[in-house]
C-alpha cells in the first residue's frame, strides 16, 4: 500500500496550460482514497490501483477490492493509452466559467490496461468532428495552475 507522496514539480513532457476560464471550473475534491491518485496526476503520472490479493486493477480509487474484498493495494503506472468510448460536445453554459469555453468536448476513455477502467478528460490537439468510437488516445497532463493538474487525451492518429 503506498502512502501519500510529497508533491513534486511537474515533469517535462507533453504538458499544457489550461485556459484561464478552465481554471474557474470546479476543482477536484479528492477524498481519502483518491488523494494519492490526484497527487500522481500532479506529477504527470497516470496510475491505477492493483489489488495485492487478486491482482485486479481498479479505478476510481477506493480502499477495498470489489472482487476479493482485499484491503491491500499498490498504485501502479497505467499505460497512458486508451480508446474513446463516448463523448459529448457541451454548448450550454451551466456555470459562468463556461461562457468563454463553449463549445467544448469531454471524453470518456477506456484505458488499455482494462476494459472496465474508465476515465474522463479533455480532448487535446483534436477536433470533436474527428472523434469516433475506439479512437486511440494517449494521456497528457494539463497544468491548470500551481496546485491542480488534470488529464487530457490526445488522438494517436
Amino acid at each position: 500500500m503506498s502512502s501519500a507522496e510529497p508533491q513534486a514539480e511537474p515533469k517535462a513532457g507533453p504538458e499544457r496550460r489550461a485556459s484561464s476560464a478552465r481554471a474557474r471550473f470546479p476543482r477536484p475534491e479528492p477524498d481519502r482514497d483518491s488523494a494519492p491518485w490526484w497527487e500522481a496526476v500532479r506529477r504527470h503520472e497516470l496510475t491505477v490501483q492493483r489489488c495485492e490479493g487478486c491482482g485486479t486493477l481498479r479505478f476510481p480509487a477506493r480502499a477495498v477490492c470489489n472482487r476479493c474484498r482485499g484491503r491491500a493495494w499498490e498504485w501502479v503506472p497505467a499505460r497512458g493509452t486508451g480508446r474513446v468510448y463516448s463523448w459529448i460536445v457541451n454548448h450550454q453554459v451551466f456555470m459562468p466559467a463556461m461562457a468563454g469555453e463553449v463549445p467544448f468536448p469531454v471524453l470518456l476513455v477506456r484505458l488499455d490496461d482494462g476494459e472496465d477502467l474508465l476515465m474522463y478528460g479533455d480532448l487535446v490537439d483534436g477536433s470533436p468532428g474527428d472523434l469516433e468510437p475506439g479512437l486511440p488516445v494517449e494521456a497528457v497532463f494539463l497544468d491548470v495552475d500551481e496546485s491542480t493538474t488534470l488529464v487530457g487525451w490526445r488522438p494517436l492518429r
Partner: protein
Amino acid sequence: MGTFRDRAAIAGVGYTPFSKDSGVSTLTLAVDAVLAALDDAGLDVDDVDALATHRVGDSTPPWVVAPALGLPEVTWYLDQFGGGSVSHSVIGQAAMAVAAGVAETVVCYRAINARSEFRMGGTGRGPAAIFDVQYQAPYGYFAPPQQFAMYARAHMNAYGTTHEQLGHIAVGQRANAAKNPRALKRDPITLDDYLSSRWIAEPFRLLDCCLETDGACAVVVTSRERARDLRHVPVLISGAAWAGGDSFFSGAGSGPGGTDLTVTEAARLAPRLYAMAGAGPGDIDVAELYDCFTYSVLVQLEDYGFCPKGEGGPYAASGALALDGELPVNTHGGFLSEGYVHGINHVAEAVAQLRGTAGDRQVPGAEVALSTSQPGYVLAGTSALILRSDT
C-alpha cells in the same frame, strides 16, 4: 412476494399548478399538494398518519410539513436522500409500511421549485458532492444533460441510434401533452422543430431535455381495504422493486453490463418487478417512463423488455409509443412536456389512466401500468412500480 402484492393502493392524487415561478415556498407547495390529494381521496388531514418524500437539499421534509398541516400524529415517515432515482422508491416504501401495518394512510409528496430556486442543471451553484464528481466536474462535466448525453452517445456508437429516433420521442410526448390541460408545453412540435432546436450537450438538443418546473404532486397510499371504501376505484401497488450499483466502477458486480453504459440498472430490476407483480412486458397497457431526457425513455424500452437491446431507437420511431400504439408511453407528455416533478407525476398519471379518468388522452381499457424512476445512471440507484386497477 405474495405478502406484498396488491396489499396497498393509491387512493388519491393531488397537484399544485405547474409553472416556471411558483412564487411560494416548497413548504406551501407540499401542503397544497397533500391537501389536494386528500381531497381527491375523500380523506381529511386527521386520517393521515404518515408522510414520505425525497429531496436533494431542495425541499421541505416531513417533520416540517406535518406540523404545518396540523397532523395529529406521525407514526411513520420517510425523508429519503435522492433525486429521480428514488421517486418511485418512496411510494414503494410507503406501500411496504402499509403492508407491514406500521402506517395506515401515507401521503407521498414531492415539492420543488426546480426552475425558480434549485436548477438541476447547476446554473448558479456547484455540483453535488458525490463520489464520482471529483473525476468529472473539473472538466466542466457535472450537469445531468451532459451525463445522459454521454450515455446516449455510447448507445449511438454501439447500436447506430439516431438523432431522429430520439426526436420521435420528443415529438410524440408533445402530442400527448397537447391533450393534457395541466401540461406546460402543449403546442405540437415536428421532427424538424426538434432537429433545429439548439444544442445543449451534443448529442442532445434543447428538445431532448425535460422542463425545469416549479410544482408539487402528492399521492395517498393506504390499504386495499380502506381504499375500497373511498371515492375512486383503488389503484393497487402490485409490484415495487429497487436496484443499485454504480456503472462507473471497475470490477465485478458494477452494473448489469459492467461498464457498458448502454445498459441501465433497470435491466436488473425489471425481472424482479415483473415477477413480484405477476406480470410481464406484454401485460403493460401504459408505461410512464422516467424522461429526464429522450434517451432515458429509449434505453428503458430495452431494459424493461419491450424490445431487444439496441432496438430502442427503431421501436420508438415506429409509432408504438403513441396513445393508440402498441405501448403508450408518457401519456401526460412526461417531464419533456407536462412538467418535471421528478417522477411522482408519472405515478399520478398512471393512476388517472387506470381509473379511466385521463380525458382526451385516456388509453381505452388500461388496467396495468408501469411507472419508473431514473433508470440508475446518476447516483446509481433506481426503483419502479407496477400498478393495477382494482376492478
